[in-house]
Every structure is written in structure tokens, then in C-alpha cells.
């Protein structure tokens, strides 16, 4: 199964405070462990929301673009890993071993990734095709 481990933002990460060299070294070692254990599928760190934006959807379909930064710091995302593990608990155990990504209290949230089959009947072949075609295009444009 695949899980995403989501690093939540902190005051520092939102303020673009770069991690210490010690932290980078520790995180590098942790990443290497994930790779060597064969569980790492990918992962990225994100710029603070001051460089981000939101598209907000109204009830009747209207769209509004809101530029960052956003205020609810602890709910924001600062980075993620995509992992292949054999159980959800394995992912939890891995993240317990992660060095604290920031120099202050923070959180890593762990979520199971939907596989196409998890959507069941609601996800019709047409919808699935649309979604997957999009993904494939994104992939091929990389």
C-alpha cells in the first residue's frame, strides 16, 4: 500500500527559515534509510505559502483566487513523502524515526493513498479515464 507522510508547516518554515546544517544532515540520513529499505517512492519540500495561492470554489461554482501567505500555520503543508509500505503501522513506525523537521514543535500527518479501486462505483470508468489521462499528461510533461 502507499501512504503519504505530510510534514506540517511551522512559524519557521512559513518564514523561510532554513533548517540548520545538522538538521539537513540528519534528514539526509533518514531519507537514505527510507531509500535503502526500499520504501521511498518520492517526496518533496515546499516553499512557504507566501509563494502560494488558493483557488476557492463557491457553492454555485464561482472561483476566487486567493494569494498567500495563509495564516492557519499548523494546518499548512511544508513537504511530503510518498512511501510504499506493507502496513499503515509500518509507515507510522518509520515516521516516529524521522528527525523533527523543524527546530520547534510540529507534526507529520500520515494518510493512506487511495488506489483507483477504492473509489468503487462512484468513480465511473469515464471519470477514472479523465483523471488518469490528466495524470499521465503531467507525467509525460516532466
Amino acid at each position, binding site marked *: 500500500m502507499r501512504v503519504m507522510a505530510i510534514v506540517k508547516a511551522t512559524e519557521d518554515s512559513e518564514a523561510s527559515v532554513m533548517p540548520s546544517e545538522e538538521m539537513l544532515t540528519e534528514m539526509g540520513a533518514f531519507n537514505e534509510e527510507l531509500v535503502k529499505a526500499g520504501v521511498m*517512492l518520492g517526496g518533496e519540500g515546499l516553499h512557504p505559502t507566501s509563494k502560494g495561492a488558493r483557488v476557492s470554489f463557491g457553492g454555485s461554482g464561482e472561483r476566487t483566487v486567493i494569494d498567500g501567505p495563509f495564516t492557519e500555520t499548523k494546518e499548512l503543508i511544508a513537504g511530503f513523502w510518498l512511501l510504499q509500505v506493507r502496513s499503515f503501522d509500518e509507515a507510522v513506525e518509520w515516521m516516529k524515526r524521522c528527525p523533527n523537521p523543524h527546530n520547534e514543535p510540529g507534526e507529520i500527518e500520515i494518510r493512506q493513498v487511495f488506489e483507483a479501486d477504492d473509489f468503487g462505483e462512484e468513480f465511473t470508468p469515464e471519470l477514472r479515464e479523465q483523471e488518469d489521462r490528466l495524470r499521465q499528461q503531467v507525467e509525460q510533461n516532466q
Partner: protein
Amino acid sequence: MEREDARRAIDAVWRIESARLIAGLARMTGDVGVAEDLAQDALLAALEQWPAAGVPDNPGAWLMTTAKNRAIDRIRHREMAARKQEQLGHEVELRARHGEPDLAAIADDEIGDDLLSLIFTACHPVLATEARVALTLRLVGSLTTAEIAAAFLVKESTVAQRIVRAKRTLAEARVPIEVPGAAEREQRLASVLEVIYAIFNEGYAASGGEELIRVDLCEEAMRLGRILVGLAPREPEVLGLVALMELQASRFPARTGAAGEAIPLLEQDRSRWDFVLIGRGLKGLERAEALGRPLGPYALQAGIAACHARARTPEQTDWERIVAFYDGLAAITGSPVVRLNRAVAVGMAFGPAAGLELLDGLSGEPALAGYHLLPAARGELLERSGARKRRQRSSPAPPR
């Protein structure tokens, strides 16, 4: 801590730590069977103590220390028995001279070598392929005997017996637990890759009720392959095998229809292919090619799979490139099945007639006599050539 929580935590720790634990113990004791017993002892101790005391901060180190203490206990027992029989021989003398710190000290940087040694040992050519597969899944994949049995649709007792016999064979043949030297390395690595691909194919070939377990088996094979890439990052065939598995697995969501029927590659809904795996597979293949050494059979097959993965529609498939990969593959393996596939690719790249000509050359091949894909390939190419002729004969439709 709740008992159930503790059990789940121990299970997760075990999945992460057991291969490295067994690998370190195997180096200490020189016997994978003894190593696994010691690791199991440590697991039992964890199951006894962690629910009450909590999971230690460094569970891997805890398990290793516990297992090492059991190992030292065992050696002392043996020594006492030896003394009783007044056989204070060489072994004890040697140990007295060297002391015991070499037993106690396992440096972190050796863990990688230990794990690689364990993989090479579990995949040793002295064992039959099915024994290698079972032992690798057990020692390196940390699957239980029951899990292996379920995945391979055989009885648990059969798997248990296979593993016991494999360990005995390794001990009797005095197989050293080490990374083979340069002279042996290529052949031994081929043996390891064969085991990993056998595990993958067992999962890939399956269909029907056991689907879920089988997908897990493919994921396990990919995980083992990625571990091997981490341990031996400059081996193009290791990278090639992982890329091949990832590219093949990327088609999982598209290869069966609603009624469970198999859908051939060229008819698959490509929008359902798994883009994460395709991206990884293509990158892995690039890494293999960048090493600048001639590509082996796995990397060449990955190259073929990559040509399909890159094509958004079947019409965009680079068949000429596929033919080139088949040329390489045929030169290495000389397999008539490869030549058959090459003929089909030639037909797709240069027109059905060219493919049919090559197929005619294969019709006398004894290895392909009765091989159902030969007439199937001929039929396919004939149909395409018929369709082409029909198209050429008919006048273009008037524009509407």
C-alpha cells in the same frame, strides 16, 4: 500501553528491523539458521517485555543487543559442555586469545554489507530456485511461513520444510556468508536477480480471487529490488530489473477488464497506467543507461517496456527502438521466443511482410513447435497486412 497497540507496534518494528537483525547475526554466527533462531528469540523477548515497559527508543538496537546476549549465552553453553568432556580445544583457546568484543561490536557501516551478504547467501545457486525464493522472502522480506504459503498457493508445511531444508543445505555446503568476490560476482548477482524476478512474476502472472495477496507479492519484489539498488547502486542489471518490474506493474490497473478478462497491452486503456511507477521506471532505466556499460537482459527488457510506457497511444509506440532492444536481447539469450517477439516488433516497425518473413524463418525451430504464440503472431501480422491492402485498394472517402 494497550496490549493490542504494542503488538501492532512490534509487528511494524519487526518488518523494518528483522532483515538487518538477521543479517548482523548471520555474520556473527556464520549460520543463517542460527541467526534466524536468535532473531526470533529477541522477537519473543520483545513480545514479553514491550507491552508493559513500552517500545524502547531505539527498538532495532534493543533487538540486536538482546539477540547478541542470547548468542553469547549459547556459546558459553557450548563451551561448558566442551569443558565437561575435557575438550578445551582450539575454539575456546582462540576465543580466549581474541576475546569476545568482535562478537559484541557490529558497526553501523557494516550493516549494508551484512544485508547484501545475507541476500547473496539466501539466493545461493546451491539451492533450487523455489528454495531460494522461500528463504529470501522469509529472511530478507520478513514474511511469515503462512504468508509465503498463501502467496504461492501451497501448504504452509511445504514452505516450512523448504526453508528448513534450504538452511540445512547452506550449512552442510559450508556456504560462507559474504559478498562474493569479483570473479563470482556476476553469476551470483544473476542468481539474486532471478529470485527477485521470480517473486514478481508469481504475483504478476496471477489472476482471480487471490489478487490482493499477489499484488502484495509484486510490491515485495519491487521493495527487495530497491533494497538491492541501495546496496549495489552501480549495477546496471539491478537498476534494469527494478525498472522492468516498475514499468510492468504500472500496467496493473489496466490489464484486466470488468469481468476479470485479460486485456492485451495494445488494447489497454493507457490512462489507467500508474504514473508514479512509470516515472520511477523511466528514471531507473536512465540511471542504468548512464552507467555506460552494455545493457543486460533485464535492462533491455525494461527498455522495451519503456517504449510502451512512453507512448500515449499504441500508434505512438517507437517500434524501431523496440526492435533494437530485441536485437540486443536476441544476441545475449539466443532464445527463439525472443526472436519470435522480435519478428512481431519488426512487423510493427517495418510492415507486416518483413515480420512474416522472419516468422517463416522460425517455423522450423523445434523449441517453438506447438508454441501457441507462433500461429497467433502470424495471424496478427496477416490480419494487419490484409487491412493494409484493403486500405490501399479502397478509394479515399469524399470529404464531408
